[in-house]
């Protein structure tokens, strides 16, 4: 088992993590081999579950931490971070 990796960043799009943006994240996370997580204020959501992400309730400006359990999923992590930074292309 390799070390976990995390990236902390802010939700920039106006709508925040709504169904469509969360769905894009969940789709990316589903490609990972190990666990992918999104943390907000000590609450953790399974990034492969759209519903779980939504329960975090992340409006614009929320700080979230995306993390992977397996270093092999680094690319997934970076893709997810890029997607969040880009504001989900909104």
């Amino acid at each position, binding site marked *: 088992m390799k070390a976990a990796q995390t990236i902390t960043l802010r939700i920039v799009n106006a*709508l925040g993590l*709504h*169904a*469509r943006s969360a*769905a894009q994240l*969940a*789709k990316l996370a589903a490609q990972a081999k190990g666990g992918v997580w999104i943390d907000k204020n000590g609450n953790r959501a*399974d990034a*492969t*579950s*759209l*519903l*779980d992400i*939504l*329960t975090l*309730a992340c*409006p614009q400006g929320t700080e979230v931490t995306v993390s992977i359990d397996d270093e092999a999923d680094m690319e997934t992590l970076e893709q997810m971070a890029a997607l969040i930074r880009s504001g989900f292309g909104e």
Partner: protein
Amino acid sequence: MEDQESQEIILKGIGGSPGICIGKAYLVDKEGVDVVKQYIVRKAFLPAEVGRFKTAVRKAGEALQRVIDKTPEELRQHVQILETHMLLLKDKMLYDRTIEVIEGEHVNAEWALKKVVSQVKPMFENMSNDYLRQRAEDITHVADRIMENLVGGEHVNIARIDKRVILVARDLSPAETSQIQLERIKGFVTNRGGHASHTSIIARTLEIPAVMGVGNATLKINNDDIIIVDGGTGTVVVHPTEQTLLATEERREQYEIRKAQMARTSHLPAKTQNGQLISVMGNIELPEEVVALLDHGGDGIGLYRTEFQYLSRPDFPSENGLFENYKDVIDVMGNRPVTIRTLDINGDKAVNYIHENQEANPALGLRAIRYCLRKPDIFQTQLRAILRAAAHGNVRILLPMISGIEEVEKAIALIDDAAESLEKQGLAYNRDIPIGIMMEVPSAVVTADILAEKADFFSIGTNDLIQYTLAVDRGNRHVAHLHQPLHPAILRLIKGVCDVAREKGIPTYMCGEMAAAPLFAPILLGLGVEELSMNPQAIPVVKSAIRSLNLAGIDTLIAEMMRLTTARAIQDFLTQHFGEAVTRLGAAGSDQ
């Protein structure tokens, strides 16, 4: 569609909740509602049960995909929702958990899915963000699609309606209504019931149209018939012609626009066209409801029900606890009036620590003021809390269930005692506040002239007044249709209260369902009711209705109305004279 040649039929009923909808009828027969069954699956069959669930999900996914593929370019927005639903089908919180429940609890797939959905949905329903709260509906939608494949397509039931329908029933009991997924329902039509029936109240709360008391709706309407429900005029159209559909669609749009206008204008005062200003107030039970009340433009609290603080705990609340509760509400309301009704514990809200002896007839038993006068120490605690809170705002006391002058005198003596004891202790209080009488027992109405000597205001509680006057328990489905606010007896009693109050120089207010009906507003104001208090959702509509009214010459109409002999005749009279104005509301109110 296939019924194009069918003749258009118009059915008349009573408007239970305003609004217009067009849709397919869904008939509920007398067997009522069937629900998802639970059964135990033996261990050896669990893999097959899981397989059955997976197949149902796969089929639901295929069906969704077909819909997506068939959706034309211009409906892309819609497809995005469906793509979200595709993801939800396999979401861990639904899919994996359902399988866990099947395997862990040895139950059938339907039950496991139902259980998981009932755990996940509230997580969304309880969220403060509107958008996220609405996602609960996506979950229902997806679960319904799976459920349909589990049970088999043709077995549609009320608890699992997969399309938006108009419910048509003889009558719906609260128990039945509670099993319906109300977000699926576009409108209600029932044979029985009236404006105050449970279904009407639910419909008004959900802001969907309802027509009650149609009589033969379940005979004239078949499953899947296209029908139009107009809750404003109380009409149902079966097999509408193309022209009717077009005209209705136009009116529906107009109505939606007016509703939006009403919401925007709800903060403006409710002033009639001839310059009469009316206070439109809200009824609340929980301190939290104050926010909704102000959002909907309430001018104050006309009825603050205080039972909740007593019912939500195992023992009696302390004076300080009550004081804090009242003060919270008063602080938010600022200078607006807060009418606190003293403890009205009754039959359907029996406090579990008071059940000293069971009563055969609780509605006529030891409740409200009778109970408080029997237990002066409990009453004293509440009165002290109210007087202390009154030092912080515009408070009135409302005494419920008064049936004669002695009760008023005793209550006032106890209020004086409370003030005196507060004075001695040096606590801040205000005794100089209006004390009013709830006019809900016929004997109080008949002796209004006597009561007026001791009261600063009257507030007509229509729900109980109707129940006691007409001897009708509206919770009893066999007689609920007799609960008629427009019964000539009720109108005479209301007129009696208003006439006496005017003569004695005190104001008359009204709380209860009747105050929330826009169609009743002209006559209530015409009779002399100065303040209407209702559930907060109803405030914008009633305010709008009042703004569109011109009450010059109302006396003549009232005299004419008072000569009518039946509730139905009076209903028709009101619809004829004000139905148009009330349905068109907002139009007149918004352009000034």
